[in-house]
């Protein structure tokens, strides 16, 4: 008993000493950022300051979370027990998996800092140590916890993508974001989010996702995570399994629907049963066994890089076939995720402010935007692409607001409405708005909204009023494209 205690105590001390040593490679990330105002897209919110954590990885770089450095105007790093500020810049950033790599151009920053090695996926119930600068404190903080579970989680930074995530009861607080999670001498994850209302619940990004990101950027540019464009559902009903000619209690999950592009590619079909993804057999509930954890099989779809092929074992027409699916990165759902770092596109004409329909725009309706925003906008964002892909507009455009001026004062519908046509031209992109106004030679401009409502402007007066309106409202340029 005594020996055991001594051993444990020794191990604990060794662990702390090791972590403290590695902690020297954990830095504080101080950020000054400025986010745009999505319904007044030429304006920005006041500059805000925030802080996170980061750690040194190979290649004299610092890894942190994308959300720590999003919209950054200035990034300053602070080393362990070093009072000097070090300016950094974003080298690569992935908003979908919430990771970023920073570079420091000032020589000397990496002197004496060790590269922290990446480990594998930790086991459930194993102990991990988070390390960082929570709550804006200037001293490094260590907290220990166990791995509670490993599963796919929605990554809140982007909002519309799910990746593998590890849950721990180690405290992960604001400021911890971007810091390493250690197991032994290796980094097994990047701390990135908590769940409001759940105590002692934090999440970190596992090394599989980190490695995918680092491998992706190794060629000098970030491509992103490819998607297969399929919706997989469980296949557990005996009748459905018999219908497809499969044993009632066997494995395999069913492709219930396909994205338009996948359907056109023709490699995968509805009612295909996925028996295996890569080397992983797929259970009837759509999960695979990944290092002892049952996780959704989409985890395996996220392993290939852009352009690589993913081998699937498929049950189709009562026989087993192998399919190699080329994995491509798609940006068709970009606007239904949170957007970062690129200020919103807009065009101002006669005081009418046009901007693309995005999730960020509809969120300007307030916290309950789903119940408050125009239903046409919600349908266009979330349902149109699946239901009637032929009618999808590349970039639906909204009239965000109207800057009051005599030329537009008689318009009844002056804001928060989706555009159908302008001067008879169907509006597919913001550029179409510009063309429609600029090419019209009739005495009036006619704007037709999706609701059917019509508003007109006098052509000559609108042209004359435009510079005055831009000047009155302090808009530097009538467009950002």
């Amino acid at each position, binding site marked *: 008993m005594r020996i055991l205690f001594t051993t444990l105590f020794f191990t604990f001390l060794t662990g702390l000493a090791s972590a403290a040593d590695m902690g020297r490679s954990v830095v504080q990330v101080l950020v000054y950022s400025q986010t745009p105002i999505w319904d007044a897209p030429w304006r920005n919110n006041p500059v805000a300051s925030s802080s996170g954590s980061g750690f040194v990885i190979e290649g004299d770089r610092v890894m942190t979370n994308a959300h720590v450095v999003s919209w950054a105007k200035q990034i300053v790093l602070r080393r362990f027990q070093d009072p000097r500020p070090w300016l950094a810049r974003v080298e690569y950033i992935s908003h979908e998996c919430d990771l970023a790599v920073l570079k420091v151009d000032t020589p000397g920053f990496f002197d004496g800092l060790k590269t922290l090695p990446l480990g594998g996926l930790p086991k459930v119930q194993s102990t991990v140590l988070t390390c960082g600068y929570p709550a804006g404190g200037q001293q490094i903080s260590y907290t220990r916890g166990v791995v509670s579970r490993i599963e796919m989680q929605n990554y809140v930074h982007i909002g519309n993508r799910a990746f593998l995530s590890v849950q721990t009861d180690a405290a992960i607080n604001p400021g911890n974001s971007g810091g390493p999670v250690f197991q032994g001498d290796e980094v097994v994850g990047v701390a990135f989010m908590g769940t409001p209302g759940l105590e002692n619940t934090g999440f970190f990004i596992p090394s599989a996702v980190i490695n995918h990101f680092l491998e992706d950027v190794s060629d000098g540019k970030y491509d992103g995570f490819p998607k297969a464009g399929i919706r997989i559902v469980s296949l557990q*009903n005996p009748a*459905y399994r018999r219908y497809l000619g499969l044993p009632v209690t066997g494995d395999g999950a069913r492709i219930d629907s396909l994205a338009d592009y996948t359907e056109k590619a023709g490699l995968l079909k*509805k009612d295909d049963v996925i028996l295996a993804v890569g080397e992983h057999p797929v259970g009837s509930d759509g999960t695979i066994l990944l290092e002892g954890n049952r996780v959704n099989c989409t985890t395996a779809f996220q392993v290939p890089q852009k352009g690589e092929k993913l081998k699937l074992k498929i049950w189709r027409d009562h026989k087993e076939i192998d399919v190699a699916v080329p994995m491509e990165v798609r940006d068709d759902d970009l606007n239904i995720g949170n957007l970062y770092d690129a200020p919103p596109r807009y065009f101002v004409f006669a005081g009418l402010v046009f901007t693309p329909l995005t999730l960020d725009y509809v969120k300007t309706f307030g916290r309950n935007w789903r119940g408050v925003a125009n239903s046409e906008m919600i349908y266009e964002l979330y349902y149109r692409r699946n*239901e009637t892909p032929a009618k999808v507009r590349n970039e639906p455009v909204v009239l965000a607001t109207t800057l009051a001026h005599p030329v537009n004062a008689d318009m*009844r519908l002056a804001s928060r409405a989706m555009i159908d046509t302008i001067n008879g031209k169907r509006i597919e992109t913001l550029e179409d708005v510009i063309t429609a106004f600029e090419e019209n030679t009739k005495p*009036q401009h*006619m704007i037709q909204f999706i609701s059917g409502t019509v*508003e*007109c402007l006098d052509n000559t007066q609108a042209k004359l009023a435009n510079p005055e309106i831009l000047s009155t409202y302090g808009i530097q340029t009538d467009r950002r494209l």
Partner: protein
Amino acid sequence: MKIKTPLILASCIFATASAVFSQDAPEPDWQTSIVTFDITRNNFNFRIPWDKRAQTAAKLGTVIEGNEILTTAQGLANRTLVRLQKGGRGKWYNGNVEWVDYQANLAVVGVSDPAFWEGLAPVRFALADELKRNLQIVRWRGGNIERRAAEFSRFNVADANFNQAPRIEMKTSSEMEGAGRGELMVSGGRVVGLVASKSGSTCSVIPSPFIMSILEKRASGDYRGLGFFDFIWQPASNPATTKYFEFSGQTGGVLLIKPSTRPGAKSPLKLHDIILEIDGYPIDIQGDYLDPDYGHVIMEYLACRKKWAGDIVKFKIWRDGEKREIDYVLPKADFSKNLIIDGPVGKEPTYVIAGGLVFVPLSAEFLSSWGADWQRTAPFRLVYYNKQKAKKDQPSLVVLSLVLPDSYNIGYQERKSQNLVLDRANGRQISKLDDLIVALENPQNGFHVFVFNKGSSVQKIILEADQLDEANQRIAKRYGVARLQKLK
């Protein structure tokens, strides 16, 4: 019917500050003209459509000519027993609803026992110019007549919230607690209206001229129900817009942006017509007209101002650079053919349960089971069908509303298998429950194949055909469902 931009629906006519009591008639004894209702009804939950819950409600009515009682239609749907009491106490008499119009929110009730009518006297209704002064709300409470003062606020045409005929209502304020159950609004010796609802201190009153016009029409035996304008318009207040449509030199009118909201209806109106006059009343650029009884109110009311479903309403419009006159036949306020079926009120929910899969028509009643704010709280995709046109081969929709868990339907019990719109069953297009019944009689190679609308969270469900009956019996027993289907 519907307006695309926010409008003030009616003008505000405020009562004069000097209240003078009418001296022309003695105050009647309201005790002989107000009766109390006790209504027992089945309350349905359209999401558990086989479930009936008995509910009782009290309300008030008033004696009218011909030994009849007038009350509001609210609370009469799915009634099982209607009883009436006079004098605020004593014996209850069985009543019979002789006529009800849920769109007009009025009902007439008869009592066959002659003893009921002894000592009762019909009320007199106020004329249009007697509606605004010296208002009181009168009702039975605790065996006594209770009176509370009320103050006229304005006339308003009720916003067509979903599928409703426009209704004129009088807004008044009063501190009477719990009003809105058919109490009488009186002035002097006359009935000004029935109190239909109360929100905060504001009462919505069905005004007497509207009531009288309906009672007269009913008495003539030619009541065809209320009509409504089935088009959508917008104010034509933007001069650039009127110029664009070559409509210059005019001072009023509204722009038509949807000629008809009724599926498959042919309208004499065309897109971008400008409506100048209706039945001789000039329409201003806000869409209001000057009503002789109610002042400035929105033009929707001209669909039921002494007009009835099937009547011709005269329109003066601007089209293709010239004025034209058009006869518009008022459609009946019947929305049962809409893509989201609405009404008629008072019908039991219909459903089909197949292997634990509960199918119901997509209806306003089903959606309103999400509560008063259902247009926001019900599943977005279901509510959005109200903005979509019906397909020719699918004029209405059937929803898989929930799954009653059983070994037969295992794998389909998750939340994502709920509230899906059925497209086809066993290869057959499904518009109504009857289609589904036929489809279930024709399984495909031993399976029942259900395909849901594109974009649904699950697009296909398959069940074993030869086990369906056995599963149905087991599920009915386990969940206490007396009938596995109700089609009418």
